[in-house]
C-alpha cells in the first residue's frame, strides 16, 4: 500500500514541478516587459518620440530619437515589402508549379528551413564585406539588403505552412475545371489571404527588431533618414548605444527607447493575433 502512496505522491510532486516550469516560462514574458516598463516609463516623454537628437544629446542634453524610430520603420517596411515580393512567389512556385515530392521541392524547402536559423550577424558580416568591396558606405540601402536576405526565409517558410493547409481536393477541382497553374495559384492566394498578412507582420517584427544585421551595414546618424544611400539610425541600435553610456540620463533614455520598441512589437503581435483568429473563422 505504501508503494501506491509513494507513486501517487511522486505524481503530485511531478505535477507541481511541471506547473512551476510553465509559470516560469510564461512569467518570464511578463517579467521582461514589466522590467522594461518599470525602468523606461519615467524617462518616456513626448520629446523622445517627436524630436531628433540635439547637440549634446548623448551626454544627456535635449532631443529625442525620432531619427531612429523613422529609420527603423523605413528599413523594416521596405525590407518586408521586398521580402514579400520575393518570398511569396517562391513558395507559390514550390507548391503549385513544382511537382510535389520532387527533389527541387524537397531540397529548396529544407534549405529555406535551415536558413531560417542562420544568425543575422552572419548576414551582416557578408553584406558588410560586400559593401567594402563594392565601395558602398554604410547606408540605409545596405541595411535594407541585409534585412531582406534575413526575412526572405521567414516569408517563404510561413507562406509554405499556409499553403499546406489548402485542401488537395480544392487544387484538383480547379485543375479538373481546366484552370491553368497560375489560375490555381491565384485561388491558393485568395484562400490564404489573411495568413499572408500574418506572415508579413511576422517578418516585419523580425526586421524591426534586428540589431546584428544593421550594426555593420546601416551605420548611425542623427539626422532624419532622407536618402537611401545615407547612413541611418535604427531603434535597436539607438538602444544599444545609449545603454553603453555611463551617464544615467542617457541610460534612462535607452530604457525609454526599449519601451518604445516594446510597444511597437506588442502592437505587431496583437495585430497578428487578431488576423490569425480571423483566419480561423475564414476556414471552411
Amino acid at each position, binding site marked *: 500500500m505504501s508503494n501506491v502512496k509513494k507513486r501517487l505522491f511522486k505524481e503530485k510532486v511531478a505535477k507541481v514541478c511541471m506547473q512551476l516550469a510553465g509559470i516560469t516560462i*510564461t512569467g518570464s514574458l511578463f517579467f*521582461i516587459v514589466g522590467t522594461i516598463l518599470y525602468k523606461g516609463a519615467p524617462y518616456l516623454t513626448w520629446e523622445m518620440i517627436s524630436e531628433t537628437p540635439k547637440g549634446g544629446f548623448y551626454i544627456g542634453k535635449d532631443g529625442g530619437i525620432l531619427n531612429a524610430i523613422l529609420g527603423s520603420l523605413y528599413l523594416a517596411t521596405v525590407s518586408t515589402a521586398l521580402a514579400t515580393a520575393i518570398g511569396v512567389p517562391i513558395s507559390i512556385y514550390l507548391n503549385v508549379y513544382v511537382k510535389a515530392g520532387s527533389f527541387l521541392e524537397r531540397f529548396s524547402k529544407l534549405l529555406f528551413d535551415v536558413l531560417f536559423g542562420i544568425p543575422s550577424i552572419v548576414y551582416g558580416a557578408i553584406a*558588410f564585406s560586400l559593401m567594402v568591396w563594392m565601395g558602398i558606405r554604410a547606408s540605409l540601402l545596405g541595411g535594407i539588403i541585409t534585412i531582406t536576405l534575413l526575412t526572405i526565409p521567414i516569408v517563404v517558410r510561413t507562406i509554405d505552412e499556409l499553403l499546406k493547409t489548402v485542401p488537395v481536393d480544392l487544387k484538383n477541382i480547379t485543375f479538373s475545371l481546366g484552370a*491553368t497553374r497560375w489560375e490555381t*495559384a491565384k485561388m491558393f492566394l485568395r484562400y490564404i489571404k489573411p495568413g499572408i498578412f500574418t506572415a508579413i507582420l511576422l517578418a516585419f517584427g523580425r526586421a524591426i527588431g534586428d540589431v*546584428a544585421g544593421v550594426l555593420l551595414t546601416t551605420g548611425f546618424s542623427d539626422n532624419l533618414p532622407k536618402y537611401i544611400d545615407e547612413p541611418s539610425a535604427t531603434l*535597436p541600435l539607438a*538602444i544599444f548605444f545609449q545603454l553603453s553610456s555611463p551617464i544615467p540620463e542617457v541610460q534612462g533614455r535607452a530604457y525609454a527607447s*526599449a519601451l518604445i520598441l516594446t510597444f511597437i512589437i506588442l502592437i505587431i503581435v496583437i495585430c497578428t493575433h487578431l488576423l490569425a483568429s480571423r483566419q480561423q473563422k475564414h476556414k471552411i
Partner: protein
Amino acid sequence: MNWRLIKDKLVERSFSLLLFSSLIVIALILTGLIVKSVPLIQAEHLGKILTESVWSPLKGSFGFLPFIMGTIWVTLISLIIAVPLCVLASVYLVEYAGDALRSMVLPLVNVLAAIPPVLYGVWGVLFVVPLLGQFVGPLFGVETTGYTVFAGGVVLAVMIFPIMISIMVEVLQTIPQELKNASLSLGATKWETVTKVILIKAKPGLLAAVVLGISRAFGETVAVLMVCGNIPQIPKSFFDAGYPLPALIANNFGEMMSIPLYDSALMFAALLLFVIIFGFNLLSRIILNKLEAKAS
C-alpha cells in the same frame, strides 16, 4: 497559343527565376565566406587556429579557442536551464492542461519569440546582471560584476524557450492515444506514463527541438554580447566573463581594416558559425521531417 497559357508560362519563368536566384545567393554567401577566410587558413594551420588560446591580432596570433569555449559555455548553461523547464512545461501543456489553458499559454510563448534580442539584452543588464553580481555571486562566495557567462546563459535560456516549447508541444501531440491508454490501463500513474512511454517515444523529436535551440543559442549575438563581459579568456566557472564568437564579429568588424588577416579571421568566425548552425539545423529538420512523414 492561348493567352491564358502564355500567362501561365510567363509566371512560371519569373517565379522559377526568383527561386533560382535566391538559391544562387545562398551559394554565393557560402563561397564569399570561404574565399574571405582562405588567407587566414593559408597563413596558419587550421588545427592551430581552433586550439590556440592567444588572441592578439596585432601580433598576428589568432587563437579561436577562447571564443569557441565562450560560445560553448553560454550555450550549455542556457540548455541546462531551458531543457528541463521546456520538457516539463510542454508535457504539462499537452497531457495535463485543458484546451483553454493551452490556447492561452501558447500564444504568450509566441510573443516571447517576437521580442527582439536587444530587449532581452536590456532585461539582462537591468535584472540578470545585478542579480548575479549582488546576490547570487556573494551567495557562492564569488566576487563578480555580474557580467558573466552565467548571465549570458540565463538570457539565452529565456530566448530559446519559445522555439523549444513550440516544437516539443507539436512532437508530444503526435504520440498516439492508444499507447497512453495501454500504459494507463496497466495501472501506471500519469507521470509514470509520461516518463516511461511518452518521453521515450518522443525522444527523437525532443532531441530535434533541443538541437534547434542550440543553434539558436549559438548564433545569438547582441543579447549575449550585452551581458557576458566580453573578455577573451577561456571561462573556468559560471562566474567568469566570456566572449562568444558572434560577439567577436559584432564588436570588431569595421575597425580591423589596417591589421593584416584580421578581417579574414573575422570572416572565418562567421564561416564557423554558418557551418555549425547549418549542420545543426539540417540535422534537426531531417529528424522532424521524418517524424512528420510518419505521423501523417
